[in-house]
Each structure stands twice: as structure tokens, then as C-alpha cells.
């Protein structure tokens, strides 16, 4: 089944690519579900200002993005992690030279109820809370109350980021509740006194309290400078550097423009550069 779907995706992508070779205004993208929303928002922007450029976006995970790029099935591979050396080697072996374009930073805010006394956690404490080793707020300097641990569902890119950067791929504890969206996580924390959750940085507003992690409050500056620990760059990989002025070039550099930065901020990510 999996291979059939992949074949179908590759087949469709191959057709679109061959058509693109004629018209030169087709961009095929594949890869991460985390980067997917940015790619889609950029594509919407393109649809408004450059309707002649047709953009096809698949979201099959970072690993599959590399495979597509390697096989020439896509122009841009969206990745929420850097390419592994084995992937790099097999790309080069197929005469594909991957070039990374950093398009945004993805930072996760750890949020608690505004009434919670705790204002700071270390990364280690956070991991212990989510693995279930720490189960009471008094162990981290708060009141004597059981911690209600709220996690995103395992489907989401947010979960994947958290699982990698905080949990180091260890499983989240059995007591954790799972919610289906960033907004739902925030609303649960807002209404539950002893809850803790993580959301994309854009979702941490004043209805909840954002914790500092290892002494650093997440904001555009601390994430962009790499000081905040729960953050990672998001990439788009192309085969070689795209032709200057071409559609792919404009697409991967859109994130540097004013409009691109606004789109990225709106989605809750951090733009690579500020004015």
C-alpha cells in the first residue's frame, strides 16, 4: 500500500515535472509536514501575484522529501531537519547536489496557566515532566498539585519537534493527555490550573504564561540567535543553487522579503532575518 502510494506520488510528480520542463512555471515540492504550511502559504501568495506558476505540494515527511529530490520527482524538498550524511551521499551519487535554504525558525513555547507560580524550568525538568518522572508542581518550585501534562497528537510536526529536542525521542509518559491542535492546547492550559503544554511560538499569547527554559524566554530574538533550546531551523533543499531570477529561486527566497516574513510570522514561526 505504502509503496503504491509512493509510486503514485512519484508518478504524478514525474508527470508534473515533465510538463514543467516544457512550461518552466511549475514547482513541485515534497517533504515535511512542519514546513508544509509555510510552503502552502507561499503557494497561496504566488497564486495571487503569479497565477501562471503552478505549485504542487505533497507532505510525506522529511525523509520522503529527500527521496523525491534524489529521484528528480520534486524541485524543492521541505525538511524540518538537516539532511543526513547517508542521504547526502546517495544524492551526490545520483548527481543531485542538495543545497539548503533556511526559510524560518521553529520555536516551541512551553505554557502554563497564568495562576501558576512556576515561571522557569530547565530542559531536563521539562523532559522529566513529560516522561512522568516529575508529577507534582512542588518538585519544580510550585504548589503541591499534580501536573496535568498536555501533549500534541503524535501526527503533528509540533510533537515531532518536541519529541526530538526535549525528549530525545524517548516516549512521552502515560499520564499525558493528547490534543489535536495548538489552539486546543492553549485553551486547555488557559482553563486548567495545573496544566502544562507546548505550542508553536505564535500561539503563546497573554491568555497563558510562557515559561523560560534554561533561563531564556522564547521570542524572535532568542530563537533567531539560537539561545532558546527548543527551536530548530526549517529548510528547503534544492538540487544545486536555483537559477537566479527563476521561479524556484524566487520561491526559496520569498522568506527574506517583507511579505514572506509576514506570512511566516502569521503561521507562528520565526523569520530568518529582521529589518
Amino acid at each position, binding site marked *: *500500500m*505504502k509503496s503504491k*502510494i509512493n509510486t503514485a506520488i512519484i508518478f504524478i510528480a514525474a508527470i508534473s515535472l515533465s510538463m514543467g520542463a516544457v512550461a518552466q512555471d511549475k514547482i513541485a515540492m515534497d517533504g515535511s*509536514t512542519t514546513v508544509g504550511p509555510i510552503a502552502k502559504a507561499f503557494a497561496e501568495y504566488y497564486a495571487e501575484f503569479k497565477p501562471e506558476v503552478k505549485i504542487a505540494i505533497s507532505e*510525506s*515527511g522529511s525523509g*520522503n522529501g529527500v527521496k523525491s529530490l534524489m529521484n528528480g520527482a520534486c524541485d524543492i524538498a521541505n525538511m524540518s531537519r538537516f539532511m543526513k550524511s547517508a542521504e547526502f551521499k546517495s544524492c551526490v551519487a545520483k548527481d543531485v547536489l542538495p543545497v539548503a535554504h533556511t526559510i524560518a525558525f521553529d520555536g516551541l513555547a512551553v505554557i502554563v496557566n497564568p495562576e501558576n507560580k512556576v515561571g522557569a524550568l530547565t530542559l531536563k525538568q521539562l523532559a522529566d515532566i513529560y516522561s512522568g518522572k516529575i508529577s507534582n508542581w512542588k518538585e519544580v518550585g510550585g504548589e503541591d*498539585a*499534580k501536573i*496535568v501534562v498536555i501533549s500534541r*497528537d*503524535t*501526527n503533528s510536526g509540533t510533537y515531532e519537534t518536541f519529541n526530538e529536542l526535549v525528549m530525545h*525521542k524517548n*516516549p512521552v509518559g*502515560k*499520564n*499525558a*493527555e*493528547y*490534543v*489535536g491542535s495548538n489552539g*486546543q492546547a492553549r*485553551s*486547555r492550559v488557559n*482553563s*486548567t*490550573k*495545573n*496544566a502544562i503544554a507546548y505550542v508553536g511560538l505564535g500561539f503563546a499569547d497573554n491568555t497563558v504564561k510562557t515559561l523560560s527554559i534554561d533561563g531564556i524566554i522564547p521570542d524572535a530574538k532568542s530563537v533567531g540567535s539560537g539561545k532558546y533550546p527548543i527551536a530548530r531551523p526549517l529548510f528547503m533543499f534544492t538540487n544545486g543553487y536555483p537559477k537566479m531570477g527563476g521561479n524556484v529561486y524566487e520561491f526559496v527566497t520569498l522568506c527574506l522579503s517583507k511579505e514572506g516574513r509576514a506570512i511566516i510570522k502569521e503561521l507562528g514561526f520565526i523569520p530568518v532575518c529582521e529589518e
Partner: protein
Amino acid sequence: MESGKKHSLIMGGGQNFMREISQRIGRGLLLSITAIPTLAIIFMIFFIAKEAAPFFGNLSHTLEFFTSSNWAPSSQNSPHFGALAIFYGTAMVTLGSCVIAIPLGIFAAVCLNEISKKAAFFKPMVELLAAIPSVVYGFFAIVIFAPILQEEGGILIAAAVFLLGTTASIVIGICAGEIFAEKAFKGYFAKRSLLIKAIMILSGIFATFELSLSAANLKIESGTNAFNASVILAIMALPTIVSLSQDALQAVGRDMREGSLALGATRAETIIKVVLPCAKSGIAAAIILGLMRVIGETMVVWMASGNALKIPEPFFNFFEPVRTMTATIAGEMGEADQSTGSDRYHVLFAMSFCLLIGALIMNAAGQFIGGSFRTIKK
């Protein structure tokens, strides 16, 4: 004259043939339209079984699936497929909503059919509950009901227990007192029944009061839990149970009631001893149909139950988050076929298969019981 008339009635060979053809075409067309849903269900069962087979083919996985509650299908190094906690969650939420919905539903149906004169107003209102989309129920559960449970949960539950318990003890006290008095004190029946009823009602109310006192001290840490999901699902199952139960009660003929009353039975005796036993298969079918809605519901449990992957501690604690099978399938399906290999994909189909088998068994039970109900109706 006579022969001409005869001639016009008999169709010629060609006419007869055309009639036969058009009849067959019409019948075939209608039959094929009827066959579409049947084919759809056969195709779905076949497809789900086919996709679940690779998982059940692996004996160690299957064993783990039913006996362990270590669920980590997305782990790349050591995936685990223990679904016991998920089965348990489904059972728990279903049981919880049964406990709430069945008595409420039957009481409401009896009231609508036997007692209230405003049934024409109340019944459409109850049926309107079925028209609310499940995501709206889920939204209600998470935004309104969960915070209320956290803040005022103990008091709310105490009030509900007291209200329902008092009503139930009055109703049960009156009915049971009457029957008990009749059986135990023949002859003194008229004098003693009131006293026995009073004792039964008062002890019922006292027990309820004690129960609600202990409930008032309850502290609920997280409002999205098995109880929340049970309550919301019970509300969703109510329209089915009330509406179909009332139909069943209505189907009990006027002659039965009048016969019972003519023999000197009171109204309560008539309802409990004549009407309810006559309608019991219809009510059972109503309950099963309501239950199926509860088991199959996805959106509400995904939003209201908290989705924690564990069997609550202690096992009867309804105020802990649980995860159901439907929520697991909905929550994990998105990445299942692409991310970490096919086991994760097939295990969800294995779960769907179990769910489907459960639903089919219940449906068959409903058909069986409902079938005997229809024969009684005649």
C-alpha cells in the same frame, strides 16, 4: 360484443414480451440500486480485513495488541502495539454513558408516553439533540464542560447525584413499596403500604444524600476525562434511546392497558408490570442502537476524553483521561501510511477490524431483538 371485449383484455405476443422486458428491467434497476449499500458494506469489511490481516499474521504483535498497554507505534527503534488500554478506554466510556443514558432514556420515554400530556412538544426537542453535529458537542465538552468540571466538579456531581437519586428513590420507593406491601402483608395491604413506601423513599434519599456529600469533596484535576466523554456521549445517545423506546411503548396496545386497569391494577402497576414487559424487546433494541452511536463516536471522544494512553488508577476512576479506539484511529491515521513503516498502518486497520466486529455483533443482536419486537407488535 363479448368476443371483442375478451380480445381487448388479452395482450398480443409482442405486447406481452415488452411488458415482461420492461418489468425485468425495472426490477433489475431497483435491485441494483438496493445492492449498492450492500456492496459498499461488503467491500468495506473485505478491505478492512485485508489491511488488518498482515498485522494479525504476526503472532507476537497480535499477542501484544490484546495483552499489553504499551502503545508506541510511531517509535522508530522499538515500536509497540499494545492496545489494551485503548480497548479498556472504549469499554469504560461506553459503560459510563450506558449507566447515564439507559435509566434516563427509559424514564423519559415512560414519562413521554404514559404520563406527560406535552409529549408533542418534548419529543421533537429530544430528537433535536440528534441533529447537533458531534464536533459541536466536542467543542462544548472542551470549552464549557471541562472547565466547569475542574472548578465546580464536586458540587456539580453532588447536585446531579442528589437530584437523580431523590427522583429515583421516590419512583422506586413508591412502586417497589406497593409491590412489596402486597406480597408481604396480604390483608393489611391498605394500611401498611404507605408506611413501607415512606421507609423505602426516606432510606433512598438518605443514601443519596450520603453519596452526594462524599461526591462534593471530589477534586477533579483535569476536566477532559472519561466522565466528561461519558456524559456527552450519553446526551448524544439519548435521542435514539428515548425516541425508539417511546415507539416501543406506544406499540403496546390500548387493550393491554385497559385490561390491566380493569383488573384493578394502579397506573404504576400497569406501567411496570404490563407495559414495560410488553415493550422490553423494543426498548432493548433502542438501547443497542444508542450504544452503537456511543461506540462509533469519534470527534467527541477525541476532544473530551483527554486521550491518555493508560488504564486509569484505580481502574474504576472515571476522572482520569482515557483513550478510545475511534480516537486512536482518527488521531494516528494522518501519518500512518507514510512515516515509519507499514506496521503502524496495519495496526490501525486491526483496530478498525475489532471495532467493526463489535459493531456487527451488536447490530445483529439489535436485529434479533428488534425482530422479536415486531412480531409482538402484530
